[in-house]
């Protein structure tokens, strides 16, 4: 029974989201007791920040200029993040569903209800009928603990995480091409590049701090190529904009590689010495003439040649990309097609030469390394690899036969709930009702659950449907580590303890593990002990943290993995000397024929629908929709539409329009702008209910990575 326990109005009154303003807090502006050097809780830059603490509350911030990644710089989310603390919506007690809504309860009763439900469901339907969903905004310690909890305490194969919605296609592509899943370079390499391709990455709004690195490259003479159906702030002054038609990225990348070959701009020596598989790719892209690619992608042949010239002639160059090319049913193919450009020109493994994916979530990198993915074990190990299974089983002290196999991915778990195969779900730091595509179906699926438990600090839209809500911790209420988008593991300090009766997340997971009869596997006294186990188990694994300690991370302002011993300096730049992580030390080319998105435009739905972020909001908005001044900056979703299309529809700026896809519709004010392709509309996705862009998006999955196709589907727009 996961319908709402009471009316939406009562839930809103009791739990929000209500925008809070710091000036209303009596402690606001008072002299702090201490300043805690820690990091922002939002995106994958993980900016250093100092939090002002008084009376066990965070009351403000001060820039931390010594931290090398951001040097005091912050975006509006980081500046206002402290407002989530001491918030009227904060969950202070465990909640249990009553007849007329949520009722505060004791931890004992909440745990009892949860473990009873787990045991009943599993004894009736089997172990895998209970699933676990984790998140990539949590620390490495929690990501590790989630995996261990699901495999040992729940014994379920079905654990996955919201990173599945984020950059798994890039991760899978990295492993296929390079044999390892990490950005190839530290961001300090960006200013050394003489050409940059920014493919499907709205850096100015989603990763604002990296803007300065890009502009410093430009000061140094770098030419900037931006590939995006919209002119975003980072694209506004680009040297070249390739306004690609949504869903055509692999064709465009093939076209650029074709032009590089025709212009004789490849590094044939590098290809011969350090790569395999180029012949097939060369044969494949022979057909991708700029004329043909112009036809497919909407990018002019002249621009395709210009992009090849800029990239190919530059002595150094870097490729950065994000969800724009990754959120596709061919996400892995798109990324590999772009990586081919990097490998074909040998622009990797040197200062100013390389590759990186812009990780959207706070721990987008670390969250995908330590075993909370359905196909992965700690240390980035493969759950289907017999040797890896043996190593982890031995370390944990369990028989290998008891270690579950590969389970379902996040969207597939929701599908399996809808199909009645999964009956119970425990979710932490994940708001699938807002963040998974086709939210009308997600809601129906949640209604079919026999038990939904949520660990959260605010009552997210998903937690509103829960049977039990376990009041967990905000980032500043716990300690641990995260790994940012360049692969630098950094230390988060605890600023305050959780308010009221709330507990730190790792304690909740360990308590549940103990109550499920697995005491000895969850006997951790603090996050430091979890980190020690995490680093220990990672020794000699694909993702090796074994030389790291909290002390080193603090003293050295973070360490890049692999870091295999206590005196190892870490590895900021990968692939130096052309040595890749495959057994033969060579990188691999993979070429793909272009194929259309799962749902393309047609006569009934003639426009492309695409989604993304705005700078003042973060993911499903559970935190940022509660921070008043961030809400005011961009209060509700707008539909960006080109004036040519707006005129055709008789729509003017700020007028409401109805956007309709085969899955749902929403009414949203138009923002009439020339900064978007006329055949495309864009709506940001941070809102819930009737304002949720994911009512419209398509839950079609990439066959390899199972990332859904957020970035393209077909819609029509009507004047209201």
């Amino acid at each position: 029974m996961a319908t709402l326990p009471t009316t939406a109005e009562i839930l809103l009154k009791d739990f929000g989201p209500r925008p809070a303003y710091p000036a209303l807090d009596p402690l606001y502006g008072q002299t702090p007791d201490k300043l805690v050097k820690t990091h922002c809780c939002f995106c994958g830059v993980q900016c250093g920040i100092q939090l002002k603490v008084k009376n066990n509350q965070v009351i403000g911030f001060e820039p931390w200029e010594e931290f090398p990644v951001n040097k005091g710089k912050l975006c509006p989310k980081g500046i206002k993040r402290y407002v989530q603390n001491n918030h009227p919506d904060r969950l202070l007690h465990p909640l249990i569903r009553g007849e007329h809504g949520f009722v505060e309860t004791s931890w004992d009763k909440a745990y009892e209800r949860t473990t009873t439900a787990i045991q009943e469901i599993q004894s009736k339907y089997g172990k895998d009928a209970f699933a676990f969903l984790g998140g990539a905004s949590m620390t490495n310690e929690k990501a590790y603990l989630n995996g261990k909890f699901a495999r040992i305490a729940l014994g379920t194969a079905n654990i996955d995480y919201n990173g599945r919605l984020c950059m798994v296609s890039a991760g899978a592509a990295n492993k296929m091409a390079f044999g390892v899943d990490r950005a190839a370079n530290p961001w300090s390499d960006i200013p050394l590049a003489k050409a940059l391709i920014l493919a499907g990455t709205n850096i100015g709004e989603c990763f604002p701090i990296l803007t300065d690195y890009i502009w410093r490259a430009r000061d140094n003479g770098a030419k900037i190529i931006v590939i995006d159906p919209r002119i975003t702030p980072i694209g506004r002054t680009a040297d070249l904009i390739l306004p690609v038609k949504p869903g055509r990225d692999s064709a465009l990348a093939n076209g650029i590689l074709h032009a590089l070959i025709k212009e004789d701009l490849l590094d044939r020596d590098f290809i011969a010495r350090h790569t395999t598989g180029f012949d097939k790719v060369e044969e494949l892209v022979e057909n991708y003439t700029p004329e043909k690619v112009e036809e497919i992608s909407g990018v002019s042949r002249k621009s395709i040649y210009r992009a090849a010239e800029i990239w190919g002639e530059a002595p150094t160059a870097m490729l950065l990309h994000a969800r724009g090319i990754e959120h596709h049913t061919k996400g892995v193919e798109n990324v590999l097609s772009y990586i081919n450009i990097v490998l074909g020109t040998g622009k990797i493994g040197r200062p100013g030469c390389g590759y990186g994916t812009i990780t959207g979530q706070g721990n987008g990198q670390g969250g995908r390394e330590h075993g909370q993915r359905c196909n992965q074990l700690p240390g980035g190990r493969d759950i289907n690899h017999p040797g890896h299974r043996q190593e982890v089983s031995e370390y944990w002290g369990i028989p290998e036969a008891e270690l579950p196999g590969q389970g379902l991915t996040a969207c597939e778990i929701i599908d399996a709930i809808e199909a009645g195969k999964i009956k119970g779900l425990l979710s932490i730091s994940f708001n699938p009702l807002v963040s998974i595509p086709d939210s009308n179906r997600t809601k129906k699926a949640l209604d079919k659950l026999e038990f939904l438990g949520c660990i959260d600090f605010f009552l997210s839209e998903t937690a509103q449907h829960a049977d039990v809500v376990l009041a967990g911790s905000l980032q500043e209420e716990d300690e641990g580590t995260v790994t940012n988008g360049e692969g630098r593991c950094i230390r988060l300090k605890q600023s305050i303890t959780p308010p009221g009766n709330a507990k730190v997340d790792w304690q909740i997971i360990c308590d549940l593990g103990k109550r499920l009869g697995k005491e000895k596997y969850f006997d951790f006294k603090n996050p430091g002990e979890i980190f020690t186990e995490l680093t220990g188990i990672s020794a000699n694994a694909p993702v090796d943290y074994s030389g790291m300690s909290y002390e080193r991370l603090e003293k050295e302002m973070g360490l890049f993995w692999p870091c295999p011993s206590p005196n190892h300096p870490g590895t900021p730049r990968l692939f130096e000397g052309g040595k890749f992580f495959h057994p033969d030390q060579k990188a691999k080319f993979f070429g793909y024929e272009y194929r259309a998105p799962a749902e393309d435009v047609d006569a009934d739905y003639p426009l492309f629908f695409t989604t993304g972020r705005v700078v003042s909001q973060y993911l499903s908005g559970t935190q940022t929709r509660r921070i008043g001044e961030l809400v005011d900056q961009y209060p509700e979703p707008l539909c960006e539409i080109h004036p040519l299309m707006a005129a055709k529809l008789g729509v003017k700026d700020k007028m409401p329009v109805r956007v309709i896809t085969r899955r749902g519709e929403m009414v949203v004010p138009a923002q009439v702008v020339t900064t978007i392709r006329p055949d495309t509309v864009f709506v940001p996705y941070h809102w819930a209910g009737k304002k949720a862009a994911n009512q419209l998006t398509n839950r079609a999955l990439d066959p390899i990575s199972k990332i859904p196709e957020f970035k393209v589907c077909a819609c029509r727009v009507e004047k209201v």
Partner: protein
Amino acid sequence: MSATQFFIDASRCIGCKACVQACGECETHRGMPMIHLEEMDRGSTVQTAPVVCMHCEDPTCAKVCPADAIKQDALGVVHTASKPRCVACSNCVLACPFGVPKMPGKFELMMKCDMCYDRTSVGKKPMCATVCPSGALYFGDESYIAEFRREVPVNTFSFGKQIVKTKVFMMAAPLTPRINVDMAVLCGFQNEKAEAIGFHHQDMAEESVWNDLPFRKPAREKEVVS
């Protein structure tokens, strides 16, 4: 030894409002940002521009103040009106060529950016220039700007016949001696039309000035790791 100065470069601005949000955190004017972030014309561009007080050498706001409430300190910083003196007449709001001072109704006091006097007076940077993710607001050594930026700092502006020199610099195209705030441009007149009505673009940089410039070396930070 070169001086620490404030440089604004709207070409780097990404419109994120970190400056606005951070300014509103200041303990002297809580909840009321003094920096403005101007959207040029969202319909046609994502261009935005941050506007701080330019701290004129001979501040127009002070000259038009009938109550002598606006003071400039020894460092050239022009301060918010003195509360006992300000009569809330809004002369300064109307007269400032950059549109900086505001007169919030509830306070009946002219308020404006004082370049974070509380921070700069103890050796810190202004808050907006500390947090700005794009370097559109930069407070630091002028030698850094000379060495690493291709644009040039300009602190002379003409508004019709009024020539204004400011403490804060604006980054402009190379070889730009001063920035002309030209009504012809603001009103949408292009070259020939503008000249026909007597406006000239003599100080506007030609595109070609960029071509002859050497590129600067990269502003590489010292790597902490390794």
